[in-house]
């Protein structure tokens, strides 16, 4: 199978459309008969990544690349970046505003959820400039 690539724009502060890229990809993966457990892990990572861009980041991009042996999810945005990635990865750490906390965001669980559900995760960030989160998922039992 050749690889299939899709990309979606994510707009900063756009809570109305937040999650739509993840839902579209969930449908696509179902149509492709990808393992349901893997689809669920990708849904969690995509959603948390999209919400982080909407809440904390600048405008961004949700990209997915689907291959027979691996799926790569990349969520990037144009800043303000993450000054301390190790701190951001700690369960419970959050800079969410009170308004966002009232909406149920800001548990500081998004990045830990992503890290737990991806086979591998890499975060790159240039403070003041941009952030990119790359997640790799291995499709077991396929060749």
């Amino acid at each position, binding site marked *: 199978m050749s690889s299939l690539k899709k990309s979606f724009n994510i707009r900063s502060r756009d809570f109305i459309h937040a999650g739509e890229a993840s839902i579209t990809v969930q449908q696509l993966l179902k149509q492709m008969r990808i393992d349901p457990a893997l689809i*669920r892990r990708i*849904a969690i990572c995509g959603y948390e990544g999209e919400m982080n861009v909407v809440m904390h980041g600048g405008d961004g991009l949700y990209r997915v690349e689907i291959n027979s042996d691996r799926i790569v999810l990349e969520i990037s945005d144009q800043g303000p970046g993450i000054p301390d990635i190790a701190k951001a990865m700690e369960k419970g750490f959050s800079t969410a505003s009170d308004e966002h906390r009232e909406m149920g965001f800001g548990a500081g669980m998004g990045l830990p959820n992503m890290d737990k559900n991806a086979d591998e995760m890499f975060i790159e960030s240039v403070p003041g400039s941009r952030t990119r989160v790359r997640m790799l998922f291995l499709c077991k039992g396929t060749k």
Partner: protein
Amino acid sequence: MKAADLAAQFNLTVVAGKDGLGRTVTGGHCGDLLSEVMANAPVGSIWLTIQVHQNIVAVAVLKEMTAIILTGGNVPDEEARAKADEEKIPIMLSDQRTYDLAGMLYSAGVG
């Protein structure tokens, strides 16, 4: 149990997503922190929450939950209703507190 039967049995008002009422409830989850719900809600759940904005529908779809119950007399935003209709995720309303309603559902063997 079907979502429609659950709504009838527990006197819940269905305000959106009626096209999804035929789906089956196989579990339950209570939670208002969206990342916690993303991490822990089982597939096929009925989800009890006090969050009323449209993002709850995306969470329900992505976690493959069956329906949402807003407890404590909360009502969904207009955007949440529209999204729930579009995604066929029933939103039901209850005046009861989450704890009390969850206890009733659990005792009745839901999930």
